[in-house]
């Protein structure tokens, strides 16, 4: 029978390292994917930050109060770790708006993860973050506010801007520009 996050956390805090490994196995995919999007396809950097995130989980899980879901909490840790790496290394790639291609020669229905990661270079850091949390991780705006600490209005405007840029990249018409 599959164990809940709370069961695994309780076991880990009681000294069972196997429970920690199970939590890593459970959440590695969404966290690694989230970081691949944030780094716009820099897989080596994303892996380093993901590893760091789970090591922080190991040392800080005793401070987790359960007010937000473990996934939200882990996304918060991953985002903060990512910000620290960016501040220290500043090796993120961005493509300026005026260098944005007219439209990418792909069918939106044929998108794959690597292509999407490349498209993230055309979005600002906040647009990448909010779009990924909203549409890829499936978070509500309130959960995104928990992760990022941004006000709801700011979250909405970043999402709208990011959506318009992606639409432009894919050559789709805007309904309400």
């Amino acid at each position, binding site marked *: 029978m599959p164990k809940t996050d709370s069961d695994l956390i309780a076991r880990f805090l009681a000294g069972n390292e196997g429970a920690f490994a199970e939590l890593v196995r459970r959440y590695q995919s969404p966290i690694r994917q989230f970081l691949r999007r944030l780094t716009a396809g820099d897989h080596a950097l994303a892996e380093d930050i993901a590893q760091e995130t789970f*090591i922080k989980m190991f040392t800080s899980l005793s401070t987790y109060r359960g007010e937000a879901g473990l996934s939200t909490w882990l996304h918060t840790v991953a985002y903060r770790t990512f910000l620290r790496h960016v501040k220290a290394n500043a090796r993120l790639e961005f493509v300026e708006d005026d260098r944005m291609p007219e439209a990418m020669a792909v069918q939106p229905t044929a998108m794959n993860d690597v292509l999407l990661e490349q498209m993230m270079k055309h979005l600002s850091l906040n647009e990448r973050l909010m779009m990924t949390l909203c549409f890829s991780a499936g978070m509500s705006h309130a959960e995104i506010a928990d992760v990022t600490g941004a006000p709801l209005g700011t979250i909405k405007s970043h999402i709208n801007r990011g959506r318009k840029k992606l639409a432009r990249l894919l050559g789709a018409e805007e309904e309400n520009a």
Partner: protein
Amino acid sequence: MNRTGNDDRHEPAGLPAMEDLLRYRQHLDGDEFTRRVVASAGRRARARPWILGGAAAAGIATVVAIRPERFTLFDAVHWPWHGVDMYAASVPAAGLLAMSIVLMLVIGTGKTIDSI
């Protein structure tokens, strides 16, 4: 995840829903990543008390080396109010200084190893 309250569902014409467009397609669940994280976390957890102990020892050694008993800051201050300078002079400045240095070093090291 609860999506209540989101109003970002209208899409530009010609685009599939953003959820479909941006959803994660691969599932990254290799055991190699888990093994690496578990090994690294264990190593750091074992190193942590040694680093903290070392920082405390370094703090105490620093205090001994700079000889704080020579610091007479509060003795030299002459306050305008009668009696206040006497109380100030009785504050064990050397002890306070020594304690602060050790505390700063241990807290600083603690914060640093959290981010290593």
